[in-house]
């Protein structure tokens, strides 16, 4: 999909749908990022206006207007440059992310589990982020939140931000599948070892930029294997980002021609990945 095509999918309210229909936060944030990378400011500004207009009083974003709850999409919005969101809007969103954890990490839940005599597994030591408040932490939203906070840390390094990033990265390392890479979040589920998924493996690696360890190396090896066989646009986008984060992207790689970029996030992320390859880094800042 070209920039023109992406612009043509923009709704009249300034936001983007996933494919068609009403505007959603996630596709709009990725579309704006892609447009900013391409210098397409007019359409990007309309998208930013829409995003700013739907921030909730608690500082987070709903996935879609009409949804009365802030969710994981807040971290996607925080990938947008602070100067375009506005300092106040950005600061409240950072606070929302810093104040959100998986339910298993909350004090109330831990007390309850202790009273019930349930053993505390090592995988719940480090708080990650949930898709929706009130649920457990998972790899996807944790990776996105780390990316959002890393961007803020480059601007303003505070102990609370650094602590949550480190906790999140420990969360990811503790949830890695036995052979490397990530499933949604469990190393072992229901009596079997979880197998890694390409998309979550790419996300995990992207969020562990700057971290080197044998575990990360094994995840890189899994990601490279996925890259050679995967035909899903979403997965390939994240695999490429993840491998770029560790300088492990195979030289001269081109996505297979049969890969279908069907949704706005797939298309926008694909553009962003291409832009990062030529030094327009809007993901890590």
């Amino acid at each position: 999909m070209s920039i023109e095509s992406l612009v043509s999918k923009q709704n009249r309210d300034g936001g983007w749908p996933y494919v068609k229909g009403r505007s959603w936060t996630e596709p709009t944030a990725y579309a704006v990022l892609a447009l900013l990378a391409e210098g397409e400011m007019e359409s990007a500004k309309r998208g930013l206006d829409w995003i700013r207009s739907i921030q909730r009083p608690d500082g987070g974003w709903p996935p879609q207007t009409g949804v009365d709850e802030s969710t994981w999409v807040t971290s996607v919005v925080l990938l947008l440059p602070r100067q375009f969101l506005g300092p106040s809007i950005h600061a409240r969103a950072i606070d929302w992310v810093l104040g959100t954890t998986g339910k298993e990490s909350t004090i109330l839940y831990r007390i309850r589990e202790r009273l019930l005599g349930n053993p505390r597994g090592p995988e719940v030591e480090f708080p990650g982020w949930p898709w929706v408040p009130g649920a457990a932490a998972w790899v996807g939203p944790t990776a996105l939140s780390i990316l959002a906070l890393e961007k803020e840390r480059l601007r303003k390094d505070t102990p609370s931000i650094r602590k949550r990033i480190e906790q999140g990265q420990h969360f990811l390392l503790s949830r890695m599948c036995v052979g490397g890479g990530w499933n949604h979040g469990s190393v072992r589920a229901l009596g079997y070892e979880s197998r890694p998924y390409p998309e979550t493996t790419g996300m995990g690696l992207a969020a562990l930029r700057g971290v080197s360890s044998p575990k990360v190396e094994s995840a890189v090896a899994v990601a490279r294997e996925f890259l050679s066989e995967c035909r899903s646009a979403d997965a390939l986008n994240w695999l490429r980002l993840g491998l770029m984060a560790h300088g492990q992207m195979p030289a001269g790689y081109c996505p297979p021609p049969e890969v279908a970029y069907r949704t706005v996030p797939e298309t926008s992320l694909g553009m962003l990945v291409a832009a990062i390859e030529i030094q327009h880094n809007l993901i890590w800042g």
Partner: protein
Amino acid sequence: MSTEFTRREWLAATAAAAGAAVLTGCTRQVPLQSSKVSIVRTAAYDQGIYDTMRRVLEEHQVDIRGRSVLLKPNLVEFEPESSINTNPLLVHATFEAFRAMGASQVRIAEGPGHRRNTLDLADAAGYFKIVPHFEDLFVDLNLDDVSRIHPTRQFSRLEKLYLPHSALNADLLVSIAKMKTHHWTGATLTMKNLFGTVPSGIYGWPKNVLHWAGIEECIADLHAAFPRQFGIVDGIVGMEGNGPIQGVAKHVGVLVAGSDPVAVDATCCRIMRIDPYKIGYLRLASGEMPTRLSEANIHQIGEGIATVASPFDLPPDLPGIRLEES
């Protein structure tokens, strides 16, 4: 939509209801209406399924002329060789049957709980190959526009439930499930398949909020949220043991269908030799009429349960759900 009973069926239903009331020692008058459930021997995924599905829908007198139908298969993982996903041939046969019966629109929709790339998943499961123009007919329920719903009856602790417009606005929602065991709920059939209507665009991958709010209860909530349903279970090859993902393929050679998902799922449980009264969501959905689950209150069409029953290996942690031989 009407599902008319013949005089003979009314008599059978009335007799069954009276019998059930005596058996359960019920003292108050509970109006029971027998639900029709078809059990059809179907040995393999072949062209014969097209005739079978047309015949099944005609038997149930599903009047769908001029109305919209949404077919909801079960797509879980990229494992085309396994028995994890609803077979695309069955979905296409159902699609063609509803079209032949005069539906104004038939679409296929799913919102997988594990993988974001729904169309890639459908492609790997063979849907693009089997269903002509599949992409034009398909709706990704994870990314569809949503509205908040207020179920008439709520069982779970979910504070807010948002559901996709394509599912809410369909005149008939057809859950086309796979006959599988489930490590938490015992069995996953047409009712559990409705988890795929919950939009991951809101709740994430996986839809973990449903687990925290109570899986059984959320299944019952979803059942209540969609009043116009038809259920079909792909039991040609199901999955036993540690389902719904890590289990083992199980050839049963049946299709099960009906307009009452509770009755369809209870019948499937009996075929799998699982006690439907030990399946929490079936108990919840049958509510004040637990006799609704009674075999006597389900009017079987086609094969009898005993002739097709095939005990499924149970999930390791749920040995107690086995249906005792009477």
